[in-house]
C-alpha cells in the first residue's frame, strides 16, 4: 500500500513537472527547425543574410522503432498514453526528421564564432528532447531533468573530454560544454539504457536539425560556396555542395533510403 502511494506521488510530481503539455513527447522529434543560436543571432563572427534550406526525403519502408519497456520506471511511463518507442526513425509522409544538417566547409578562413546564449536539452519521459541537436564550441549546453527519477548524462566523445554527471531529481539543471568540434558526440543515460542523444559540436552556428516534416533551414550565412553535410544516427552521412549569394536562399534536399531488410 505504502509503495503504491509513493508511486502515485511520484507520478503526480512527474505530471506536474512536465505540465502535461508535451504532446509530442512520444516521437521525440525536434520541434525547432533551426538551431537556437543561428536564429537568435547570439553569436559572433562573420554572418550574412544568405540561407540554405530544404527537406530530407525518406524512401522505402520506415523501420519500426523499438518499443521501450518503461514498466520499472513508473514516473516516466505515466507520461505516455501509448507505449513509448525509441524514436530512431522519425518518418512522416516520406520525410525524415532528426537529421543533423551542417556546414562542413566553405566558411571564410579564420572566422571565429562563439555563442553567447546556451542551448538546452531536456530529459522528459525518460527520453531526450531534442534527440539530435548542435552546439558551438564552448557553448553552454544546459541539461535539464524533467523526470522525478535519477538520470545520469554521460558524454562519450572521441575527441573531446567526456563527462558523466547525475541528476537525481526533477527540475535540476547542469551546464556543460565541449571544447573541440566533433560530429556527433553521443550522450547516453545508463540508468535507462535506451536513452540516446547526439550533439554535433561545430566551430560555427550554421547547422540545423530537420523537424518532424523533414525540413530544415540554415540562416544568416555569408555568401559563399559550402559543403553541406546531413547526418542521421542510423543512416549515415550525405553531402552536397551549394553556392549562395548575398540575400539568396538556396534549396537543397537530401534523400535517405531505409535500411535494406
Amino acid at each position: 500500500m505504502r509503495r503504491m502511494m509513493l508511486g502515485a506521488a511520484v507520478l503526480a510530481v512527474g505530471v506536474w513537472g512536465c505540465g502535461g503539455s508535451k504532446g509530442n513527447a512520444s516521437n521525440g522529434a525536434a520541434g525547432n527547425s533551426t538551431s537556437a543560436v543561428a536564429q537568435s543571432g547570439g553569436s559572433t563572427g562573420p554572418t550574412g543574410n544568405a540561407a540554405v534550406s530544404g527537406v530530407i526525403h525518406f524512401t522505402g519502408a520506415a523501420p519500426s522503432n523499438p518499443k521501450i519497456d518503461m514498466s520499472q520506471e513508473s514516473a516516466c511511463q505515466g507520461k505516455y498514453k501509448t507505449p513509448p518507442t525509441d524514436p530512431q526513425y522519425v518518418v512522416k509522409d516520406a520525410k525524415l526528421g532528426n537529421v543533423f544538417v551542417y556546414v562542413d566547409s566553405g566558411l571564410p578562413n579564420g572566422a571565429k564564432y562563439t555563442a553567447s546564449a546556451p542551448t538546452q536539452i531536456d530529459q522528459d519521459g525518460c527520453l531526450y528532447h531534442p534527440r539530435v541537436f548542435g552546439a558551438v564550441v564552448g557553448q553552454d549546453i544546459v541539461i535539464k531533468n524533467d523526470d522525478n527519477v535519477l538520470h545520469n548524462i554521460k558524454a562519450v566523445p572521441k575527441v573531446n573530454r567526456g563527462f558523466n554527471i547525475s541528476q537525481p531529481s526533477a527540475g535540476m539543471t547542469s551546464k556543460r560544454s565541449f571544447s573541440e568540434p566533433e560530429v556527433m558526440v553521443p550522450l547516453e543515460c545508463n540508468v535507462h539504457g535506451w536513452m540516446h542523444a547526439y550533439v554535433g559540436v561545430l566551430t560555427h552556428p550554421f547547422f540545423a536539425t530537420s523537424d518532424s516534416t523533414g525540413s530544415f533551414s540554415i540562416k544568416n550565412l555569408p555568401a559563399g560556396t559550402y559543403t553541406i553535410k546531413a547526418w542521421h544516427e542510423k543512416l549515415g552521412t550525405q553531402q552536397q555542395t551549394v553556392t549562395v549569394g548575398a540575400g539568396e536562399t538556396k534549396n537543397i534536399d537530401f534523400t535517405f533510403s531505409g535500411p535494406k531488410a
Partner: protein
Amino acid sequence: MDKLLSWMLPPGASTFVGDIDWIYYLILAVTGIAFVLVEVALIVFLIRYRKRPGRKATYIHGSNRAEIIWTSVTAVVVVIIGILSAPAWNKIKGREGVPPNAMPIGIEAKQFEWNVTYPGPDGKLGTADDFTIRGQLHVPVDRPTVAMLTSQDAIHSFFVPSFRIKQDAVPGMHIRVWFQPTKVGEYELGCAELCGLGHYRMRAVVTVHTQQDYDRWVASQAHSVAQR
C-alpha cells in the same frame, strides 16, 4: 520498533535460507556468549578492583595454564564453526553445487541495469526464442534457476536479500550463480558493489511465479518478442 532492532534475520524465500540462517544463529549464540562473558568480566573487574587506598595490585605476570586453556578453547570453537560452515559454502558456491535440472538464464549487468535473458519456451539458452528483459527477474517457484552472470562495464553484485544470495558480476567473467525460490511473490534485487553514479538505483524486481504462471508469462513474452 522491535523489527527495527531485531537480531532475527528477515524472512527469506529460497532454499538457502535453511542453509545459511542457522549458521548465523549458531555464531550469534557463540559470539553472544563470548561477548557477555567478556563484557561482564570486564565490568565486574573494573568495579571490584577499582583503586582503594592502601591496597596494592596482586603481583602476577600471568598463567601458562590460563593461556593454554583460552587459546585452545578459542581455536577449537572457531575451527568447529569453520567445519560446520563449509558444506553450505560448497553447496551454494561450489562449482559442483549447481543442480543439474536448474533452469538456465543469463544475467548481464551494466551501469545501471540488470538485463535478464530468458531461455524462452524451449528452456534452452542460445536459441532463437530467447528474449531479454530489462530490470525484471521472473523465476518459477520450487525449481532451481542457474544464472550465467556477467557484466558489461564495471563490477556489479547480484544481491537478492530474500534469497540470501549474492555474487559479483565481473566483466570478462561468466560466473554461475544458482538459487531455488520457495515462495511465490515479489522480491527486490539490488546491486551490492559500488558501480558508479546510479549504483543506488540499480534495482530490479524479482517475481517468483508458480510453474504454471511462469510458463504462461514466458509464452506471452516470447509472443510479444516474436511480434517485434
